[in-house]
């Protein structure tokens, strides 16, 4: 191994370390949920207030429940119920979707979606 090799390995390790730091942030609690119907924004709600929402999609009504900073699909008209089995979601960046009913939800950070979810140094 030459000294050049050692430098290359050190640089590569530093680069990969930086990638881990950048993309493997610890999970942050979400503040809002975005609900989309047919890919278009149907509403954005804070997770701090408990509520139950009914969204009508291609097959029928999906019920979405918000409680204790978490959100879930409680009931869906689709056959395989993938979205319901996804369960409660609480971290920023989490998402669930009902493809047959074309309804999806995605959790955002504390603000209204235009502020970063987290900052780190």
């Amino acid at each position, binding site marked *: *191994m*030459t*000294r*050049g*090799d050692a*430098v*290359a*390995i050190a640089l*590569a*390790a530093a*680069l*990969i370390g930086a*990638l*881990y730091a950048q*993309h*493997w942030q610890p999970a942050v609690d979400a503040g809002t949920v975005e609900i989309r119907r047919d890919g278009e924004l149907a509403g954005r709600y804070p997770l701090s207030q408990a509520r139950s929402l009914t969204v009508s999609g291609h097959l029928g009504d999906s019920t979405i429940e918000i409680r204790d900073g978490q959100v879930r699909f409680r009931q869906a008209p689709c056959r395989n119920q993938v979205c319901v089995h996804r369960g409660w979601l609480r971290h920023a*960046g989490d998402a669930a979707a009902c493809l047959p009913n074309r309804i999806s939800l995605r959790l955002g950070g504390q603000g209204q979606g235009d502020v970063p979810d987290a900052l780190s140094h």
Partner: protein
Amino acid sequence: MRSATEPMAATAEDRLVAGFAALAIVIHVLEAGFPSPIPGVKPGLANAITLIVLLRHGWRLALWVAALRIVAGSLLVGSFLAPGFWLSLTGAAASLAALGLCWQWNRLSARRLPSLQLSALGLSLCAALAHMAGQFALAYLVFVPHSGLLTLLPLLMTAALVFGLVTGAIADAILRRLARLSPPPQRPILDP
């Protein structure tokens, strides 16, 4: 004037390229038989042949061997022009570009900073990282532009680092033995 059907005589250089490309293709095909834990990750041992040709016979022949291996190897595996082929091709182009840059670096540093030259180990590392980065860039920008894919990037680059070093170490060991058996036509870059 020779007719178009008359076969052209193969030069010694052609035979060299064909022989090394054949070796690389065999490794490529054998490797394709092993299942991979994550799509896009494989050891890339065939690149050891590219490195050996590069360090013993220079950049031009290495490019030929790599290109022949990619086309013939993917034809044999059956991935030619499939979506995965474009990923591999982008990766291969990026990795050859990185090798070319490192090769230039070695030529530039030969006079002033010979200790900073890259051996097969460093060359292989750069090639592997560039291969993964190029492949990932195409996947992210064209096939799946979703930010969730970025979570995979550190893992994929770690795999590239490990496999790049393994391939480089293998190429280095083979180069040493070859140097003992027959002195290379060009001075190889070995440890000081």
